[in-house]
């Protein structure tokens, strides 16, 4: 399912102009990392995809739907959304019920719902807390409950707002497996993240925002542009910075690329 965003602007009621004209086409099946400083408008942008926010100007189309003409509930069938703060979306008293809620609202059979919940529990390693109250779980695990509820919805578009926050090595590995799963399913994944190193290793495309606008789009090499990195309050990937400090002309991004380059120096 394609996403078409045309000249999108959004001002909050306190008149903060969070988005100042964003135009973006995201073809079906894309995996896009959205980078940029705090306050650049990343969350504001992605909240337009499931209708949590409506444009002050411009349009957002999710497939053939103009988001202004559809409710959040309707858009939830097309766009799964994991909030930056999982507590913003967790509301059931049992992990199992939280994950089942979305599928139940899709009017699937109980059997289908059960299958989806079980799969999501497994993918998110929540099997042993299925009967727990989400708020009895630590924050990092509540994040996984929120992720699981989106996994179970099997939407063609998935939005993850800062999924890398507070993850340890096991969590990041599990996240990578989820991304691979979604990729194999042909789902479009848009992830807002501050983890530049994670973004360049697991997303083929990066989108950089600053002050309500998109300032760069492309593969990891857009981060070789020091102005872009500065304007977006980012750091270039660790190894890119190291290569630059060593005076290399070609800037590798991943550990493998770095070692290849090291061998040839």
């Amino acid at each position, binding site marked *: 399912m394609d996403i078409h965003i045309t000249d999108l602007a959004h001002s909050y009621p*306190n008149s903060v102009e969070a988005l100042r004209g964003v135009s973006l086409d995201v073809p079906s099946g894309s995996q896009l990392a959205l980078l940029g400083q705090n306050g650049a408008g990343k969350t504001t942008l992605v909240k337009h995809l499931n209708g949590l926010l409506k444009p002050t100007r411009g349009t957002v189309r999710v497939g053939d739907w103009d988001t202004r003409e559809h409710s959040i509930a309707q858009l939830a069938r097309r766009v799964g959304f994991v909030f930056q703060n999982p507590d913003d979306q967790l509301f059931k008293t049992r992990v199992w019920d939280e994950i089942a809620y979305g599928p139940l609202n899709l009017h699937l059979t109980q059997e289908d719902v059960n299958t989806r919940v079980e799969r999501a529990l497994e993918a998110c390693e929540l099997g042993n807390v299925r009967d727990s109250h989400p708020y009895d779980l630590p*924050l*990092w695990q509540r994040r996984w409950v929120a992720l699981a509820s989106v996994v179970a919805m099997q939407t063609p578009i998935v939005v993850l707002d800062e999924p890398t926050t*507070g993850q340890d090595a*096991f969590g990041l590995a599990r996240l990578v497996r989820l991304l691979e799963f979604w990729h194999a399913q042909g789902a479009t994944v848009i992830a807002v993240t501050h983890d530049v190193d994670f973004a360049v290793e697991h997303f083929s495309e990066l989108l950089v925002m600053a002050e309500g606008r998109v300032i760069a789009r492309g593969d990891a090499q857009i981060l070789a542009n020091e102005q872009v990195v500065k304007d977006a309050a980012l*750091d270039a990937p660790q190894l890119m910075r190291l290569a630059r400090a*060593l005076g290399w002309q070609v800037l590798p991004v991943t*550990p493998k690329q770095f070692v290849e380059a090291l061998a040839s120096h």
Partner: protein
Amino acid sequence: MSILSVRNLSFRYQQATVPALRDISFEVESGTVTAIVGANGAGKSTLGYALAGYIPHFFKGEMQGTVRVNNADTRQTPLASLVTQVGLVFQNPFNQISGAKLTVAEEVAFGLENLGVPREEMTMRVQRALELFGLDQVANQSPFALSGGQQQRLALASIFVMEPPVMVLDEPTAQLDPVGTREVMESIVALAQRGQTIVFMEHKLEWVARLASRVLVLDQGALVAIGEPRQLLARADEWGLNETRYARAARLAKARGLIAKDALLPQTLEQAREILDL
């Protein structure tokens, strides 16, 4: 003198079957920066609660052993007194914001109001905190109108302003962009240079290597290693920690015979340069 002294600390949350902390002992010297690392579920936040006295005063469960802050046993000292000694910044900034105040400046002032600090001094301290954490431009906005990163800085500012001798920061930059992260880390350095004792829980190992003079590694509730950052962080994968890319590249380089097999893995850009800049 140890400003924090933990002896044989164990804790099991009330409804849990497994203890969250198991027989932990360590000391923290005044004016130092200590990092606590570990996989999720290892007990980092729980240890933070114990250092600040929320365990046992707020979280129910079974506690054994002692935690002493400035020689005061946290079990015997009221929480109202402990909060002036140990400022804890929660992992989730959304939980720290009181909801009782309409503006960012008032939120930062809240703790000082409760301590009865005179108005003039309060204004000055609040202004300093706002500036230090880059919130002076949003001082009159509602705390709930801030972005996630701004809210995290607000949580930090509102504890910093109270000037507790010990600050325990639970993943203080989790919501922040790289520049924001650097700014907070630099603030931590500045505080440490002024004699503040800082304990911080962190997944971003590059910053642990840069800032901490000492690292504690938690694994399933137990303290499995204490020591100097670079040595310990080289064993990141043993404990489910997020190895820096410098370390990962160095590992691969070692396997290819491009750097000496006994070279200690770099955790920062500077350390990596040293190994490679020959």
